[in-house]
């Protein structure tokens, strides 16, 4: 990297530290000053006079120049910490983000960035999803990743995490976009997932180090999720949910939206059904999405039809009572008429063979393979 480019990046890093400087403002300032270095050289009060910054902000801008060297030190320590700082001037900067009117000035990256020559899909949905939503997200993540689609998501609890876990299971690449600093793991219980995503994909954020996961950050990061994706798949969303904000952004950016239909009585699927009503593509299986990416997909969505054939009669019967929607042992016993202990034994067999899963307590649900 030339000395000049290096200097530009240093100034961008410094600019990223200001909470009041969004991508749009920085872009305006750059048009004014000609280069990022130029922005630094202009007095804060002058920016305020031109009306680019407010008065207080101008003073802050001027004051912050004293800390420039300290910020620089932090910038140079990034590499040792395994964090890449990629600015809009860099070659690696994702091409998918460039056309956005509010494209982030720079990105913090651990791991890698999505490849430009491979399709990418955002999997989004409710944090408090039902077993159905989680299981489908995981299944789609797995199948799509296996077929070379990169899975983009928010590494949050619920559908996001499930989709990315699936992608890892499928051995594909998955990228997590954070709403906080890259050195912060939120939600904490996803720590294991974080590290795995870094290894087989990457985590990306535009927030500077140490930024806490503020509520207002999430809608901002959602535009990167939709921006980096070629299409968005909504697994489960309530009415007026955060996922629908991402869908809105995706539509503005001209991306395709896929939605998983749900039962009309499920409040958790109402958002999805609404999307379909207003024109999103209804998705019957991973094949529909792969078809959109012109990837051939042979396998049909099946609930383990193949392995089901090997089951004994009673197991088959119990299996037929179990749904994606988890059922309590009590109901299974009542419906099947088998004695309790026999039911427990067969269910455990099914669980061990990976056909069903115990979703907590004595509830059992089917697994998609």
């Amino acid at each position, binding site marked *: 990297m030339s000395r000049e480019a290096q200097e530009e990046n240093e100034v961008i890093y410094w600019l990223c530290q200001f909470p009041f400087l969004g991508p749009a403002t920085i872009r305006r300032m750059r048009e004014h000053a000609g280069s990022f270095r130029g922005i630094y050289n202009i007095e804060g009060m002058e920016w305020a006079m031109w009306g680019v910054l407010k008065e207080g902000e101008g003073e802050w801008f001027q004051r912050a120049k004293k800390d420039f060297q300290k910020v620089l030190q932090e910038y140079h320590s990034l590499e040792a910490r395994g964090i890449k700082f990629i600015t809009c001037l860099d070659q690696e900067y994702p091409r998918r983000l460039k056309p956005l009117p509010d494209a982030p000035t720079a990105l913090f990256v651990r791991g890698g960035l999505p490849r430009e020559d491979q399709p990418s899909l955002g999997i989004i949905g409710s*944090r*408090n*999803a*039902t*077993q159905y939503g989680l299981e489908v997200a995981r299944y789609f993540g797995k199948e799509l990743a296996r077929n070379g689609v990169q899975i983009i998501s928010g590494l949050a*609890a*619920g559908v996001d995490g499930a989709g990315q876990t699936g992608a890892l299971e499928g051995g594909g690449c998955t990228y997590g976009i954070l709403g906080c600093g890259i050195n912060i793991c939120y*939600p904490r*219980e996803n720590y294991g997932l974080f590290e795995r995503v870094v290894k087989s994909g990457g985590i990306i954020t535009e927030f500077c180090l140490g930024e806490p996961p503020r509520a207002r950050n999430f809608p901002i990061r959602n535009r990167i999720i939709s921006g980096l994706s070629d299409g968005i798949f909504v697994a489960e969303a309530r009415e007026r949910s955060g996922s629908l904000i991402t869908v809105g952004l995706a539509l503005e950016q001209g991306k395709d939206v896929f939605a998983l239909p749900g039962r009309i*009585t*499920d*409040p*958790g699927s109402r958002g999805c059904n609404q999307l379909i009503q207003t024109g999103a593509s209804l998705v019957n299986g991973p094949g529909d999405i792969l078809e959109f990416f012109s990837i051939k997909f042979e396998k049909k969505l099946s609930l383990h039809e193949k392995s089901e054939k090997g089951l004994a009669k009673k197991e088959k019967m119990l299996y037929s009572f179990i749904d994606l929607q*988890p059922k*309590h*042992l*009590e*109901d299974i*016993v*009542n419906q099947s008429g088998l004695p*309790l*202990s*026999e039911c*427990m*034994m067969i*269910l*455990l*067999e099914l*669980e*061990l063979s990976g056909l069903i899963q*115990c*979703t*907590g*307590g*004595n*509830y059992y649900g089917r697994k998609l393979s």
Partner: protein
Amino acid sequence: MFQKINSAGLWGIDGMLVSVEADVHDGLPGFIMTGNLSRETREAQERVRTALKNGGFRLGPKKITINLSPADIRKEGTTYDLAMAAAVLGAFGILEASCLRDGMVVGELGLNGEVKPVRGMLSLVSAAKEAGLKRCFLPKDNAMEGSAIQGMEIIPVESIQEFAHMLMNPGSIQGFFGQAWEDLEEKAWDAYDVDFTDLNGQAVLRRATEVAVAGRHNILYIGPAGSGKTMAARRIPTILPALSQEESLEISKIYSICGLLPKDTPLITRRPFRSPHHTITPTALTGGGAVPKPGEISLASGGVLFLDELPEFAAKSIEILRQPLEDRLVTVSRIYGSYVFPANVMVSAAMNPCPCGFYPDRSRCRCSTRQIKQYIGRISKPILDRMDVTVEAAPVTYQEFRQHGRNESSAAIRSRVMEARRIQAARFAGGVAWTEGDSCSGNFGKEMEGKGSRKGRHVRFNGEMGVKEIEAFCRLQPEEEAYLEQIYQKMNISVRGCHKILKVARTIADLAGEEEIHKAHLCEAVSYRSLEEKYWG
């Protein structure tokens, strides 16, 4: 003149015989009391003097000395009043108290001479019996309670005047004896006002409860509000074996000390079910106080301690249960000695699956995964480790809770439990049958010097097995061994979880009357595996 009369006081939960000695002699008039007395005991001086005056006895201006012997043990309580009054009268020569030689006198005095009831009468009379005394003079209100001790003549006393009158005509003294234990036992079975027939549906919950009781495993119920968790827990005593006389006495003693014994029934004949509120303090749970009194865990001894809304309990309160559950007794230490109370309980606990109670019904539950985890995380791990059986209650449908009859009764379940317990008794005692309360009956109370601590622990039930016993009694055939290994690896179960599964599987096999643990038993035990292994990895 000198007069000696037998009385008794409380020491921990046991009675101790105390002789009240009175002497009257010439000298400066006065009333001196000795014998390491607490304040309320020392105050007896005024009560006795005034009661005697109001009872119509005139005491001359003499020097009165009273000693409570053994003099080196701290005396507490007001049980000695009546005996002191009698001793003083005897020492003055007003009464001939020789008929009290084989009797014990206990009671508190009012200023007008009436005799008032005291706490812990059962322990006091029991101490008298052990000392070989034949009759007890008790406050009228306590007479019923005292009569629970077999073979002791009970003479109710209403006032000091009546008492003096009795002593003047020793031939006319007519006491009564308590009902035989057998008669009491008859009554006991009607005594439970709940039965498992009341619990509709919930086959899983019933079965888990049966397994837990049979092997005396602690049980944790999880389920939405109104799914029958509390109902099932409340019915656990009805499927426990009947109380033996010793156990009943032991339990009644504790209730007697706390003043909780009902007036009309001399003994507790049902197994206790205690359900402390979740705001309870650690001290209230284990017992304590300046003069230590038994806590909830001791009140539940021989029965069930039910912790409803487990996550709401203060961590400290729950944490303090660990040692008592391990040793089956509570030791409370004070500067003048330590007290040992029984803590021979089966713990059952209940909780909602999430803060709102509807999880996993996502159409109603809006709790985030984090909230649910936080909620579950409030329960301390060591206590979860002691819960062998965890069962999730299904939400109840309308049809289920409206249907009547057709439910199995407690008696039917109890007979199966008894059979399983018989097998366990034979296993752990080499053929000698044990009863539920064996380790709890006996001398609790203040630990005496030289007597040593009673922490000798022997296994009586599958639920109490340690690693050594599990290895000895839960052997698996090669096929089952391989199956368990598969479960262990696929389901990510901890070693401790594995031990729990083996223990519970042993109980299930016992219930089925099988020598070996079969695959079906293992499978059932796996479905009762613990919370942290079921919920979210």
